[in-house]
């Protein structure tokens, strides 16, 4: 079991001091990207990137490699200069300022701890660069090492630490000067799953206490859903969608986002006239009253957990399938099944005690509500 940094509810002697330590809240800054463009040769890494990040927000830039997420972060950090556009922090343009003048905390993917400095010196580095008096440095470093529970290790060298401990040092070093903005570039990428999940929670906790604005870059959609107050999905240097995790999951606005975030069944759908939707691969046609999509070709995104064998209120649509495979995942069972029209779909059910798990080749009737079908345009198709 990984100890959490923030078990403030547990009655321990350190609790009070730790809570008091965090009272020195720094308030988060507003960050504005205004039409930022960046090209590497003929490759456009970022097209007209505009985004406002609110104070105290945990904003995740989500995308696969080459989507422009690192370019956006590097432009904000000052590691690369944008070709055009502006970046403002609390209204002040920083586009012409070098990284050291932007007052940002940053956690790197590979931690980038200084290998010739002890844990203490690593964490003290930003304070020394800011010419903080020696007395204050000791106090502040010890305080922040306490927060990340590395107090006893302050004399160790980075190479003598485990991956998780190195990550904590990197985090401590990034927050010790109480920056209004904290940048994180896939900070958990190199850690194993258990540790990653524990640290996700801890990072979130500390961010709450510090109140700083976090810009978090990852390719891991689960991480993005778990941590963010808002997510920006980038694709080929363009913003595909911005929204809260639940908006991204429940109301994806493009086929890409529906596919990228969470698991889903994507099926071609035809909107014949306003209000009438056909999904040939499921062999169904239904009426959607509140639906406003224009006629034409769309994709239907149906989350696996929306398809159920048990009828519920409003589940007007029924689909008959042949079960192919059942995967036991503890609390849920995931099925793959083939429709009468040849499409392979996935559905997921909460496991209940006396449920009989249908076997391979067995027929099942799945039901869903029209509102569970999210119609998304295939942006790639329409824009080309």
């Amino acid at each position, binding site marked *: 079991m990984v100890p959490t940094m923030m078990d403030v509810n547990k009655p321990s002697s350190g609790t009070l001091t730790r809570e008091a330590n965090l009272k020195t809240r720094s308030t988060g800054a507003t960050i504005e990207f205004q039409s930022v463009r960046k090209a590497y040769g003929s490759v456009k890494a970022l097209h007209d990137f505009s985004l406002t990040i609110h104070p105290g927000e945990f904003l995740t830039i989500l995308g696969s490699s080459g989507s422009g997420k690192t370019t956006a972060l590097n432009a904000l950090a000052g590691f690369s200069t944008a070709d055009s556009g502006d970046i403002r922090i609390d209204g002040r343009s920083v586009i012409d300022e*070098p990284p050291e003048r932007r007052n940002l905390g940053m956690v790197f993917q590979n931690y980038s*701890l200084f290998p*010739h400095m002890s844990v203490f010196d690593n964490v003290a580095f930003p304070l020394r*660069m800011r010419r903080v008096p020696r007395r204050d440095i000791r106090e502040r470093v010890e305080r922040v090492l306490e927060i990340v529970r590395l107090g006893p290790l302050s004399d160790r060298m980075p190479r003598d630490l485990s991956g998780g401990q190195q990550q904590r040092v990197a985090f401590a070093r990034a927050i010790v000067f109480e920056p209004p903005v904290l940048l994180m570039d896939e900070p958990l990428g190199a850690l194993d799953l258990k540790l990653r999940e524990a640290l996700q929670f801890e990072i979130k906790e500390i961010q709450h206490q510090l109140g700083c604005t976090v810009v978090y870059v990852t390719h891991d959609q689960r991480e993005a859903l778990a941590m963010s107050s808002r997510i920006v999905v980038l694709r080929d240097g363009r913003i595909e969608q911005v929204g809260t995790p639940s908006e991204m999951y429940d109301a994806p606005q493009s086929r890409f986002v529906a596919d990228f975030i969470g698991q889903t069944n994507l099926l071609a759908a035809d909107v014949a006239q306003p209000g009438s939707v056909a999904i040939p691969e499921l062999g169904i046609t239904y009426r959607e009253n509140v639906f406003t999509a224009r006629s034409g070709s769309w994709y239907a995104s149906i989350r696996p957990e929306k398809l159920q064998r048990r009828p519920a209120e409003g589940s007007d649509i029924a689909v008959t399938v042949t079960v192919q495979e059942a995967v036991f995942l503890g609390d849920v069972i995931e099925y793959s099944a083939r429709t009468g029209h040849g499409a392979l779909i996935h559905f997921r059910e909460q496991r209940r005690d006396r449920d009989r798990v249908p076997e391979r080749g067995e027929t099942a009737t799945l039901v869903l509500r029209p509102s569970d079908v999210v119609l998304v345009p295939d942006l790639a198709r329409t824009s080309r």
Partner: protein
Amino acid sequence: MSDGVSMPRDGMAAARRRRAPISSLWLLAPAALLFLLAFLVPVGEVALWSLQGDAGLTAEHYREALGAGPYRTILFGTVQLAAGVAFACVLAGYPAAYCLASCPPRRRTMLLLLILTPLWVSVLVRTFGWIVVLGREGLVNSMLIGAGLIDAPLQMLYSRGAVYIAMVQVLLPVAILVMFSSMTTINRSLLLASRILGATPWRGFLHVFLPLSAGGAVNAWMLTFVLALGFFITPALVGGPKENMIANIIATQITVTLDWGLGSALGMVLLVAGFLMVGAVALLFRRVTRLSGHGGTR
């Protein structure tokens, strides 16, 4: 898949692991043999000669080599010169190595080639080059006279300065290569990290890059120092008789005066002096040299 299959495979792997230290030691054999035959045996023989007098063992040669007199002066002068040359190589080579390590791969290959080309030319030829440049009628003098800056040619050849310049020129590529290879192990994102954490480029260099590359600089100093100690052709050609280094004296003892006892004693003293200097420097800078190889790849 089954235990029956995997067990013997694990057993074999374990056996291979146990054998590994012994079998890999064999890889040292060719180098060790050469070292034994071409270094230890001859040095041992030289050590014996240095102790042989007309009547059995004697310390007389060492008394002559180390006692007050021309040999001790030349020995100290040689160590001093070699230390100075090595220091100059590190000083001049560091920025070049930094530039190499920072430039994009394609340009880096080209620059490396340029730095390496002098090494293809023999030391003899390169030294003769300096005679052409620094001589009475040489390039520098004729240019200075042509420009009207001086009336009579300057005496540049056959001076300590000439030996200095020529030796630094010969050894510089070695120093650059040693420092360059240590700099390439430094993770560049450490410099970005220093910047975003508040360091100006200069302070980032001072606090991060310099300490991490200092080990390479010390290694470069030690290597060029040891090489410079034994320099022989260059001082003889551009330094002239009054700028003799200990290697020249040893050669004279062995080939001209045929005083093998004194020559051997001087050789042994030079060897020990070299060991002592390098050992002292290694000890002094053990903190920084231990860092090289840990160049922040994690």
